[in-house]
Every structure is written in C-alpha cells, then in structure tokens.
C-alpha cells in the first residue's frame, strides 16, 4: 500500500473527527489547480505583453491612471528659474560651438574628427562589433529622409492641392475639433504621441545656427526666410509636437553605430511626420512650419504639449515610450486647443535613479541628487535650476567613439514596454516616491537596460 493510499484510508476511518481530513492528494490537487490558473494568467500576460511600439494605438490621449494633468509644467514647479532663460543662440550649442572645436577637435568641425575615428575602427584587422562597415553604413543611410530631402520647407511642397481652397475655403473647425484632427492625422503616419502647446517664444532660438535672427513678427502674415532674418508671424500660435519612438531592438547595443541606426531612422521619421503635418495644415488653408531640432528647443516644447517630463539627462521622458524617442514640431496658425502639461513622477524618480549618469561614458550627466544652477559647460543656457549636462564632453565622446552616443536614452528605466509589470511600477512611482530607490535597485538587479558592453550587436544581424 502506498503512502497516499494509507493516508486516504486513515481519512476514511475517521470521518467525524473535527479538523482537517483533507488528504495530501487533495491538497496537491487543489494546489495544482491553483498553479494551472496561475500559469494561465502568466500565459495571458505573455500574450498581452506585445511591446507598445509594435502596433499599439497611437495618437490617443496618453493620460491614464499613472499620469495626471497639471496646470504648470514641472520645470516651473519641481525645477526653478525657467523664466530666467534667455532665447538661445543655436550657434552656441556644442555641435556648432567654435570654442569647443578649437579646444577638442583641432579647430575643425566635430564630424571631421568623428569620421577619423570611424575610419580608424573600420581599418582594424577586426572592427569592433557594432562598428563594422555594415553597421556604419546602416547608421548613415537611416538618415536618408532627414538629410536628403526638403521636408522642413517653410513653403508648400506640392503634396496638398491648394487650388481646392480657392473654391471651398479653408477648414474651419473648433479648436477642440482641430486638436483631435491633428492627432488622428499623426496617428496615420506612424507610431508615437502628439500634443499641442501654445507658442512660448522663449523656447525658440534667438538665431539659427548660421547666425540669422529668428523674429516673431506682427508685420508678416506668412512665414518668410530671408538672408537678413527668418520671420514667423505672431499669428502662428499653435505648436504641434510629435514624439516618435525609435527602433527598439537595437537599443541594448548603445552606443554603437548599429544603435545609431535607430537614431537616424528616428530623425527620418521626424522629417516625414513633420513634413506631412505641415502639408496637411497647408492643405486645410493654414500656414505651417515643420521643425526638427532646428528653430527651437524640442524638450520644453514637448513638455508644454503634455508629452512628458524633463529627466536628469536633460531629455524628455514620455510616459509610454520612455526616453528612446525623438521629437519633431510643427508651428501653425490653425487654432488648436492646447493640451495640459503632465506629471508622472519622473523628476522625483530621477533624484534617486542615477542610471543615466552611471552609464554615461563621458561622465557628462550630473550625479547631484538635487538640481542646481551650476552650469557644466559654455554651451549650457544659464539661469535655471536643473540637472545641467556637459554637452562638450558628450560630443567629444562621440568623436572618440566613432558613433553617436545614446546611452542615457537607451538605459532609462522608463523605456520599458507596455506590460502590466512596468505599468504597475510606473503607476506606483507616479503616486509615491517611497519605493523609488527599490525600483531603481531592482532595475539593475533584474538586468534591464544593458549596453554594447553586455550585448553583442552581431546577434541582431543574425536574428
């Protein structure tokens, strides 16, 4: 007789005795059923865990239970002094700054030294994985739409039929209708999120990179670019901002050239979406200026449009797509109801989580727990209390790396896909700071957010 049988027999013999007469077999059965249920739930989570970037609804309002709309953007409530910031001269940014070029690039543009490093690596007996000819070429051509077309034209480019307007007149929707229309249109052009802000002239460059002033004018009714100045009519008060997620599978290979392919692809999508949006608005009878990184600062514009918060790395963190994103904008005179800024606890989380700073190869990101007024390099715009980033050492690393570095974007814990695990963590973190250090520690322990040091880019080519 087996032990089980003996147990069952004993149970049968004592039916009236108080207390458990549950046999071990029954116990195992019940735990088995519970286990099967747990397994089914696990499996359903598995199926439900399709990453958000793989065809989830886009263009919808992004505000959910983890995100609350606020009247004032976090750069006014958590950070301080944004009102002190002057309009920035684009020639002062690291890419264009002549002092940096003299100091670190032998007086030449940064990309000359960058290309030298690219060639140095390519001519090695065995180029490092992620920096081979196929990686570098892929990275280059991913920029095609951004660099080789006229997507950012201030003039109509001929895609919209403007002659129709002579007969039917311009589209006259309410600001609320227009808000929905531009978001739905952007939804058709690819994944991402769209928000609308009222124009804040403070975020527009005072001068573009070659020194031409950018002027908001009440004497112009159309945007005009001349040699003397670029004129933006003051009637262009609505700013449409689009967040574009970058190609996810190569994120773990930052800062290699292969991961740079995702950046180039992101830029190309920026150009395409901004161009389509601008042409769409023109086709409805309105002026439109599509923008990539030029003309204005994308991050504060996106914050104003309710698309995210400012992170420790000085970049936008979006509640759905994290930091692995790019931003494009379209300025228009179509009346569009603006969205509200949002708060989902990013700034507070960044105080605890130093992951971007720890993984920055050039140590350009601040380790200070709290924001400060102290700038890190001459390309910073002084006057605000925030986590300033040393963009000079950052760009210098690019030239030494032979590829752009996106470690801070790739490593950010908010990049996680849209699954219940990460939604719960994001939700808790949005409501309380108590568990932030635990979440940051778990992010490391569980092995999220690696770089090319831990992952071999050859795997992507073979997959």
């Amino acid at each position, binding site marked *: 007789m087996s032990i089980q049988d003996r147990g069952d*027999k004993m149970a049968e013999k004592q039916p009236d005795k108080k207390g*458990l007469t549950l046999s071990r077999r029954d116990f195992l059965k019940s735990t088995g059923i519970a286990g099967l249920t747990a397994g089914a739930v696990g499996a*359903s989570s598995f199926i439900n*865990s399709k990453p958000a970037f793989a065809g989830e609804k886009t263009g919808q309002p992004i505000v959910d239970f983890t995100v609350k709309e606020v009247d004032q953007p976090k750069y006014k409530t958590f950070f301080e002094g944004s009102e002190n910031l002057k309009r920035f001269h684009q020639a002062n940014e690291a890419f264009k700054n002549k002092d940096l070029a003299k100091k670190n690039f032998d007086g030449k543009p940064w990309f000359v030294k960058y290309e030298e490093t690219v060639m140095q690596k390519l001519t090695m007996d065995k180029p490092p994985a992620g920096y081979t000819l196929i990686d570098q070429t892929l990275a280059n051509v991913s920029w095609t739409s951004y660099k080789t077309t006229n997507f950012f034209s201030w003039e109509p480019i001929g895609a919209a039929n403007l002659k129709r307007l002579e007969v039917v007149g311009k589209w006259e929707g309410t600001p609320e209708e227009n808000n929905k229309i531009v978001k739905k249109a952007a939804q058709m052009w690819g994944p991402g999120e769209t928000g609308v802000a009222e124009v804040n002239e403070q975020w527009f460059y005072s001068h573009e990179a070659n020194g031409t002033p950018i002027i908001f004018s009440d004497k112009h009714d159309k945007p005009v670019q001349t040699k003397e100045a670029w004129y933006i009519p003051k009637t262009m008060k609505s700013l449409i901002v689009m967040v574009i997620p970058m190609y996810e599978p190569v994120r773990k290979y930052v800062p290699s050239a292969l991961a740079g392919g995702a950046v180039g692809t992101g830029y190309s999508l920026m150009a395409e979406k901004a161009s389509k949006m601008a042409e769409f608005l023109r086709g409805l009878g309105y002026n439109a200026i599509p923008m990539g990184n030029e003309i204005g600062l994308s991050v504060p514009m996106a914050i104003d449009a309710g698309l995210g918060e400012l992170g420790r790395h000085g970049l936008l963190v979006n509640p759905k797509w994290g930091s692995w994103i790019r931003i494009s904008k379209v300025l228009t005179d179509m009346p569009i109801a603006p969205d509200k800024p949002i708060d989902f606890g990013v700034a507070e989380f960044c105080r605890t989580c130093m992951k971007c700073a720890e993984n920055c190869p050039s140590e350009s990101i601040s380790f200070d727990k709290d924001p400060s007024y102290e700038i890190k390099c001459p390309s910073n715009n002084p006057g605000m209390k925030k986590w300033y980033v040393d963009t000079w050492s950052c760009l210098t690393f690019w030239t030494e790396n032979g590829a752009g570095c996106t470690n801070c974007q790739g490593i950010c814990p908010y990049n996680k896909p849209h699954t219940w695990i990460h939604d719960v963590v994001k939700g808790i973190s949005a409501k309380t700071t108590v568990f932030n250090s635990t979440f940051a520690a778990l992010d490391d322990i569980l092995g999220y957010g690696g770089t090319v040091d831990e992952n071999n880019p050859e795997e992507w080519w073979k997959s």
Partner: protein
Amino acid sequence: MALLMWLVGLFTGIAGVKIYGWVKEGKLECQWYHWIIGVLWYLLGMFVIGFVGVSFAEGEPQAAGMAILIFGGVFLVVTVLLYRFVFAKQIKTAA
C-alpha cells in the same frame, strides 16, 4: 486572450468550488485568516509566473531568471510555511 481569460475563470472556479466543497464536507477546516493567507499565496504565485512569462516575452531572460530566484524563492518559502503551519496540521497521514 479571451480564451485564456476564460480558462483563468474556469480553473479559479473549479478550485473555488472544490475548496468550498471540502469546507462544507468538513474535510477542511478554514479559519478566516486561512482564506486571507490562501488568497495571498495564490496572488503571489500568479505574480511570479506572470512576471517570468512577461520577462521572457520582452526578451529579458535575466529579469526572468532573477524573478524566479527572488520572487520564486519568496513564493516557495510561503508555500512551505503555508503547508507546514496550516495544512500539515490538518492533513491526516498514516505516519
């Protein structure tokens, strides 16, 4: 997805009916806190399996492995304690 959710309901229902039957037949004597502990144990088990499954789906095998180690370990300890201090006292064996 719908089928899986249906299966979840089915298995949970079977487990619930089975346990209710044992209680009614006097095979199982459950105090109120046994129910709470049981539900917590069940949720913990679902959490572990769900976490591991999702982590594999995300392409994060290290997260799955660490989840088995950490959360699975906690689940195992709770299971042993549950068995040792709640059910073992009530299970009749031929020892």
